[in-house]
């Protein structure tokens, strides 16, 4: 069923919410709108974006595909904390609607039982836009994703209201972005470390080009990057690579 966007608009009077039954990607629309605070939502994306050209699986009626305009411009060093803040917001929104406790996998994955339930993407182009994809009511995933993805429906055994989820996501995003602005990056990093089992003391492997680094996580540094104590004893700061858990 299509999203009942009217009910969300009624709950958030004055908020600009653009809705599409089908769109290529909400990221493109949000960047074109450019007005900070604008929400762009789609029932289906035909070219949903993941990181660096990856596709975000965006089947109709099942997921929640949202972009938020963060600002016209932002300092480059403010973008990573915004990603972490929105991961916290997504986990909080999911908790309010389902009572599920999500884990956060640095930097931008929201996890349930070691599988990805939501992802965050922040892009700076014509405007700074955050994309949030939540696997809400997927009953099955394509084979290529089945081992690493889950949905709120699969985790709870029942359908969730995407309207309620969207409403809570907007409110939680506003709150965590305000926290970043008022309390600063360190407050966001601190909250992330409290919430994420990946941030500290977790045995991980990190992709870097074609190499894998193995080690144990030691928290976030002052800029929000992940610090890993490698097996050879050296401390390494991870700037980019995908982090995957290893069994201890």
């Amino acid at each position, binding site marked *: 069923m299509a999203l009942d966007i009217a009910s969300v608009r009624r*709950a*958030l*009077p004055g*908020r600009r919410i653009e809705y599409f039954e089908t769109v290529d990607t909400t990221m493109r629309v949000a960047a074109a709108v450019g007005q*900070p*605070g604008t929400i762009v939502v789609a029932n289906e994306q035909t070219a949903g974006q993941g*990181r*660096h*050209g*990856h596709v975000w699986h965006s089947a109709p009626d099942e997921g929640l595909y949202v972009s938020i305009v*963060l*600002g*016209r*411009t*932002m*300092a*480059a*060093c*403010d*973008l*990573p904390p*915004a*990603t972490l803040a929105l991961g*916290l*917001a997504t986990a*909080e929104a999911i*908790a*309010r609607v389902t009572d599920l406790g999500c884990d956060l996998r640095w*930097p*931008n994955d929201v996890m349930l039982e070691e599988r990805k339930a939501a992802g965050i*993407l*922040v*892009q*700076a*182009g014509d405007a700074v836009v955050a994309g949030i994809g939540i696997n809400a009511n997927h009953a099955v995933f394509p084979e290529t994703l089945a081992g690493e993805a889950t949905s709120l429906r699969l985790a709870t055994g029942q359908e969730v209201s995407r309207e309620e989820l969207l409403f809570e996501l907007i*409110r*939680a995003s*506003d*709150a*965590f*972005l*305000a*926290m*970043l*602005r*008022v*309390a*600063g990056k*360190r*407050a966001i990093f*601190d*909250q992330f470390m*409290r919430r994420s089992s990946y941030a500290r003391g977790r045995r991980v492997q990190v992709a*870097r*080009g074609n190499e894998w680094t193995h080690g144990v996580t030691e928290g976030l540094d002052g*800029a*929000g*990057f992940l610090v890993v104590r490698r097996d050879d004893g050296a401390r390494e700061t991870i*700037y*980019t690579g995908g982090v995957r858990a290893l069994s201890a």
Partner: protein
Amino acid sequence: MTTDEIRELIQLVNESGIAELEVERAESRVRIRRTIQPERIEATVPYQPVAVANPAAPAPVAKAEADAAKLALVKSPIVGTFYECPSPGAPPFVAVGETVQPGKVLCIIESMKLMNEIEAEVAGVIESRLVANGQPVEYGEALFGIRPL
């Protein structure tokens, strides 16, 4: 910290659902801890966008002093990984020898999975590319040399 600021922080703790928030400023420190789950807050908060800074050095162009012909260097505004193309297998944004105009995307620097498009600040000819695709780059590291037109 003023009482208004502290009040705002308390409100944020409630709205975000977190258990505890500690904020340290140069002169003061405040810790806010929630002991009971508040009733769901039905009121909505006005949207307050993240502080918008000036476009922080989107590609600072420095003059290479040694180069009498004034080669403009495009430097990375952030620590990350350099990508020459929008997605794996796609053609590069620019090639050496190509003429570019201001605003032309030259490359992407990925930092914490954020894709930062780096644009040309000046019109000119790409004379050199200084880093390899997929290579980590430091803050301020030179990425391209452009000979201004």
